């Protein structure tokens, strides 16, 4: 593994390709703009350098535009007249128009549709994996809803080091729930619905390989989704400064086949403690 | 360099590009920034209230009669400061001092009433930490109170200056009274918005 990577990490989710497309497209455009302008810039510097016998030449519009006569056809329209008289100066808006057209196209055909497909709507899948991710200083708890698709309720007063998210284990919805610390296992090619929460400060849930990033804000439960499409081991990191051990706040994501995932989930359920609930909730603090 | 240079000369000069003295323009710009300050607080108030699950009604938890009294006091003080300005304009020193003193007394009265309100709340153990409503209530009225204090300081300064002949006869004096008056009206208007927002709605 080299130490001077030039490019994006592997793309491992269904929408990663769409995001990468935008990144590459914009960078290609940026490079094009920069090279063209750069060449023009250097050409100007060389051509118009001060040297004996070379004098600066003013542009037409540098002298009073009042003297510029206006064609009769627009003599009735003051605004058109003003534009006409300043047309020398308005040349500088031509590159602007080109860039603006590119930007409008980007917004209309790329940014808005892709953004809403990623952030505002959830793909219509039956039987998604439902997960709740609770961030805290300095780790992630991944709470699986299990086969019933229902997340067990959480209660703040049950929070305990053995039950970091305060899951109410007595509740029937919690029966098939599993809570993992800093570890997330997902079946490949299956949509995962994630509710993102935070217990304390703002964190940001970032899986570079999924091109997935979302701030976790205390007091809010933020829905997001992802469909991993490559098996492998990836990384969850915190992208928002969350305190002195911010850089240590990480976890692993394992994307596995459905069969492997099911087997793993069953093994977790089997080893799940009967009740991790403290007998006296007051001791939690 | 034999040139005489008097930086304050430009404060005298109404013959500026805008036709307004520097001092007056400065006060207006200052008020623009003050508007942004209070607008931010009002925006925060709206955002917090919209997002809140429960929000107390001012009538239930605050002393509306006292606040109404304060509203009347402040509006009256706006009138008296205009009278003070009119007297200064007429070069009526005694009249100016009378109306300015009245303004200062009224603003002190406002603070006393406010102190009673705060006192009653503190006695019940209520403070900014009690809820977001009280947090915004104490912050906004407190900041407004600080602005009142600032106004009192300025007005008292002008009252003192009017007793010194040198200042009273200074052509800048009227402009200063006008600036103080503009500021005082602003403080008054902030209260006109605060009162319904916190107490009535």
């Amino acid at each position, binding site marked *: 593994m080299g130490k001077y990577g030039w490019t994006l990490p592997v793309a491992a989710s269904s929408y990663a390709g769409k995001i990468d497309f935008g990144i590459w497209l914009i960078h290609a455009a940026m490079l094009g703009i920069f090279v063209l302008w750069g060449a023009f810039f250097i050409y100007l510097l060389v051509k118009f350098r001060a040297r004996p016998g070379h004098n600066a030449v003013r542009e037409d519009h540098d002298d009073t535009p009042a003297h510029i006569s206006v064609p009769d056809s627009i003599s009735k329209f003051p605004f058109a007249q003003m534009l006409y008289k300043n047309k020398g100066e308005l040349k500088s808006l031509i590159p602007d128009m080109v*860039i603006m057209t590119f930007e409008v196209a980007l917004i209309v055909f790329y940014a808005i549709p892709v953004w809403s497909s990623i952030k505002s709507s959830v793909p219509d899948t039956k039987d998604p994996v439902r997960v709740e991710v609770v961030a805290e200083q300095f780790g992630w708890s991944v709470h699986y809803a299990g086969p019933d698709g229902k997340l067990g309720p959480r209660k703040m007063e049950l929070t305990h080091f053995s039950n970091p998210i305060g899951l109410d284990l007595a509740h029937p919805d919690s029966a098939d729930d599993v809570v993992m610390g800093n570890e997330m296992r997902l079946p490949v090619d299956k949509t995962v619905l994630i509710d993102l929460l935070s217990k304390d400060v703002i964190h940001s849930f970032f899986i570079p390989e999924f091109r997935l990033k979302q701030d976790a804000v205390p007091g809010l439960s933020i829905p997001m989704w992802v469909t991993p499409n490559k098996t492998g081991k990836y990384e969850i990191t915190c992208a928002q400064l969350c305190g002195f051990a911010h850089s240590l706040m990480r976890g692993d994501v394992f994307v596995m086949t459905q069969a492997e995932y099911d087997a793993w989930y069953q093994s977790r359920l089997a080893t799940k403690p009967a009740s991790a609930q403290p007998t006296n909730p007051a001791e939690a603090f | 360099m034999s040139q005489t240079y008097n930086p304050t000369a430009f404060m005298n000069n109404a013959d500026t590009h805008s036709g307004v003295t*520097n001092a007056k323009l400065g006060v207006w710009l200052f008020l*623009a920034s003050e508007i942004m300050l209070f607008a931010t607080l009002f925006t925060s108030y709206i955002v*917090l209230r919209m997002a809140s699950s429960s929000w107390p009604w001012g009538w239930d938890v605050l002393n509306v009669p006292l606040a109404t009294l304060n509203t009347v006091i402040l509006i009256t003080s706006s009138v008296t400061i205009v009278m003070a300005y009119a007297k200064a304009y007429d070069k009526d020193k005694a009249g100016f001092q009378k109306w300015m003193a009245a303004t200062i007394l009224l603003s002190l009265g406002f603070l006393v009433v406010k102190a009673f309100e705060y006192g009653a709340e503190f006695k019940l153990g209520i403070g900014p930490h009690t809820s977001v409503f009280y947090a915004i209530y104490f912050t906004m009225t407190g900041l407004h109170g600080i602005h009142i204090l600032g106004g009192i300081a300025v007005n008292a300064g002008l009252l003192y200056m009017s007793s010194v002949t040198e200042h009273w006869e200074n052509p800048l004096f009227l402009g200063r009274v006008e600036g103080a008056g503009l500021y005082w009206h602003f403080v008054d208007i902030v209260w006109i918005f605060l009162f319904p927002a916190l107490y009535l709605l």
Partner: protein
Amino acid sequence: MAHDNHGHHELSFTERYVFSVDHKVIGLQYLITSFLFLLVGFALMGLMRWQLAFPGSPIPFFGHLFPADLAPNGVMSGEFYNSLGAMHGTIMVFLGVVPLAVGAYGNYVLPLQIGAPDMAFPRMNMMSYWTYLPGGLLMLSSFLMPGGAAQSGWTSYPPLSIINPGQTVWLLSMVILITSSLLGAINFLVTTINMRAPGMSLWRMPVFCWAQFVTSVLLLLAFPPLEAASVLQLMDRVFHTSFYLPKDLVILGKAYAGSGGGQPLLWQHLFWFLAHPEVYVLVLPPMGIVAEIIANNTRKPLHGYKTMVFSMIAIGVMSFMVWAHHMFISGMSASLSNFFLVTTMIISVPSVALMTCLVFSLKGGSIRFNVPMLFALAFIPLFAIGGLTGLPLGLTVTDIYLHDTYYVIGHFHFVVVSGSIIALMGGTYYWFPKWYGRKMNDKLGLIHFWGSVITMCGIFGPMLFMGLGGASRRLYDPTAQLHNLPVQGWNVVATYSAYLLALFQIPFIYNFFNSMWRGEKTPENPWQATTLEWACPSPPPHGNFEKTPTVYRGPYEYSVPGRKTDFWMQTDKN
């Protein structure tokens, strides 16, 4: 107080150099102070860069000078790293670049360029500096206070900023600094509106004055919201209110005692409502400086003076409507993001127009490559990199990946350091003859220029690649996260470039102070410029002009056909 007539008595040393009401002295006070703060902010960065390149190894030379709680065994702690980060950002933005761009250049040059004898409120001007300095020193002193300096980044997002130590002093000094810049902004606006010399209509003002004017409006209207937001955060910290704290926080296993009911995102909205206009405060005055230098050294009028001015005004207005593009992934509503996406693309239009005008201005010129001109020319491509890399960050979809990565850091450092600071340094070389009647040394200037430009690219270029690799910002130990390992080498490149950049500032500092006393003496108008600041002696006396100048024409009348000289000063009747 209305009667102290400064011409009538000799000023004491204190009156002349310390509590001076002369805009020129205040401008130089700002200049020296803000350059010093830039150095301090840079030094903090130097420490951080060591940790980033070589995480966990003791800081060489200085490591053991720090108290054990900050840097046990010479290795900096996570808390100390976060303090350095927060203070680096705060110092660079609020104590370095803004006071340099506005306080120093604005103060010194603006009254001269519009033909005013001083600022509208000279005493307020002095107060502005004397609130800035204590505010800045208070900010610095927070390193020595129990709990250390603020640790929540210069953005101070709650709830972290409310539970972290050090933040109270940060907030207090921010309130002081905001007061200082409000005093300055009012002063600049009144001066520009009221105190222009006869004949100096708004459309004859140099671009630099327009830039300062728009900047002052931004400062006046954008800073009070941050002041209000800081007051609310101060209340949260000192009086335990919950403006920014929701219910049921559990901090490191302990329930947080507070009423709850607040909104963490409220701060972000209020903060960015200031901080986006603030970006243009950082950029517009340097752009004005670049415009001045380019017009002067191409010996022709700027291409599109009006376009530039209207673009600046448009940027000023639009900058109040783009703030939430910093918050695309903050949990804000997704449709709101689309709105800010559109406004962000709109604001790029006047920005591109400004850059286009600067490049087109070269066409037809007779370009002199002197030291200030080199800085101004370097500004164009380097700032363009900064501007272009803003594009994928302003676009919602690509921002999902690039947000909060090193790409952001690279982007805004290209804008502010190799853009603004390069232009501001160019301004020093350009106006130095006006300040001291002497010229800065060209050879040292060339060393400083090439050294700075190349090493800046060496620092910020790698950051773009690190960002593409997915490296998050503000990581105390980047190697703790596996996906950073493939780009960790770039951190080493950036670190060594930063140390080289520091070395290349030595010729500048030496040149500055050496030229002050021993530089080559220059005439009143060494650059053969047209604007008013060159129509008075160097350095200008108290009161600036011998007699009030009259202005007869626009700011950049160079190479007018049929004239003996290729420059036609604004004050020359014919």
